[in-house]
């Protein structure tokens, strides 16, 4: 019996589950980031960020997160390449059927997110963890990386902010289709609940990227 990943629908299931996991992760991520602008000091951010870097449960989640990203990206690439091969000769008149606009650009928005992801991980994850890019602080008697200071320092650079904002717009467009699409892929399509899921998806796509975008904008304004 061939395994589930050898089927197109099986690969899509993994993609959608990992996508939903990433969607949930981003809410936590945003919550932590917002302490940077809503708290007077960066202490809360540092405590949360270091907790995320050390706690064992979070460690397991971190592996799931990296694994999730990996599978989502790999299968996304495989399926997209197969889709391009499936129509070797294109139409003269491009298709103008009534469809969801952003679903046509999932691959393009994914490339934007992908490029950002590399920069982002290098900037805040690899630098702090392996390259001693962050200073040390002592909060409540515990020594930890001063990630808050690192973030605030980076966000005072205009081009970093612009790259960050472009990436989040890419993410918003990716999720505008992706959020509700994941439910359909899992097989959940219901006359009552699907419109609710679409509404929630829209709210998420606007609020979460907006929340992330506010942070560099406010830090930039405060420090200039």
């Amino acid at each position, binding site marked *: 019996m061939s395994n589930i990943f050898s*089927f197109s629908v099986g690969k899509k299931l993994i993609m959608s589950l990992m996508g939903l996991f990433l969607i949930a992760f981003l809410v936590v991520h945003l919550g932590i980031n917002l302490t940077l602008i809503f708290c007077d000091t960066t202490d809360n951010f540092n405590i949360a960020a270091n907790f995320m870097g050390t706690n064992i449960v979070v460690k397991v989640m971190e592996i799931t997160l990296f694994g999730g990203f990996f599978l989502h990206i790999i299968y996304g690439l495989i399926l997209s390449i197969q889709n391009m091969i499936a129509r070797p000769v294109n139409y*003269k008149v491009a298709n103008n059927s009534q469809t969801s606009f952003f679903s046509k650009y999932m691959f393009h928005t994914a490339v934007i997110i992908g490029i950002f992801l590399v920069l982002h991980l290098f900037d805040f994850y690899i630098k702090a963890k392996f390259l001693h890019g962050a200073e040390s602080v002592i909060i409540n008697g515990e020594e930890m990386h001063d990630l808050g200071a690192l973030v605030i320092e980076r966000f005072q650079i205009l081009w970093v902010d612009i790259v960050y904002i472009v990436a989040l717009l890419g993410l918003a467009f990716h999720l505008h289709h992706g959020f509700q699409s994941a439910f359909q892929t899992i097989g959940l399509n219901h006359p009552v609940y699907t419109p609710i899921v679409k509404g929630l998806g829209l709210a998420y796509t606007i609020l979460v990227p907006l929340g992330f975008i506010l942070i560099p904008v406010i830090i930039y304004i405060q420090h200039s």
Partner: protein
Amino acid sequence: MDLTLKIWRQENAKAKGKFETYKVKDISPDSSFLEMLDVLNQQLIEDNVAVPVCFDHDCREGICGMCGLYINGRPHGPDTAVTTCQLHMRKFNDGDTIVIEPWRAKPFPIIKDLVVDRSAFDKIIEAGGYVSVNTGGIPDANAIPIPKKDADISMDAAACIGCGACVASCKNASAMLFVAAKVSQFAHLPQGKVEAKDRVKNMIAKMDELGFGNCTNTGACEAECPKEISLTHIAKLNREFFAAKIL
């Protein structure tokens, strides 16, 4: 109506095709799209300018699924919920230029002009789109009770005529709507449930193997399907697949 037609002409499967431009005059707005092409072909024969344009058709009343042209960027043309043979010329304006292309997908190779080979769909059906019945005496119609709700959903799915417009419209050339309709029509009936697990796995495996693209829930198929097969059937297909694979 006077029209300019830009039509894909291709000698045979191997030949390199190209668009040719033809003009037709005095087309009745009440004629069908295929009748308009009949007029063109008659004219091509009489004027001896080119061999007639090849296009598929059979019933000309929207039930066989043979006809299928990609007209001005939409499978089956600008109207909704109709096949090409049911499309009326009144949906166009006098003086319009109409671009007519064949279905484009790797598993649907062009045979000639606007005719494509859709036997890939037959292969998917052969992989499981049937119920293996033991033919005995005629059973009582009420012997197996089927809830009206299920019968309706099954009937909606069974409306699929296998035209291929879903593949033609999909940006990924995915056959998911077709396969979903064929799986769903049986999955809702007691007779179909017996072989449900093998059916869904085998039909999806065949669809993948033949080189159709993968569904991204874009919804062009649903928008263009002449029988208005709904995306809910694709969700059902996915559920059937997970039930077969995981449970």
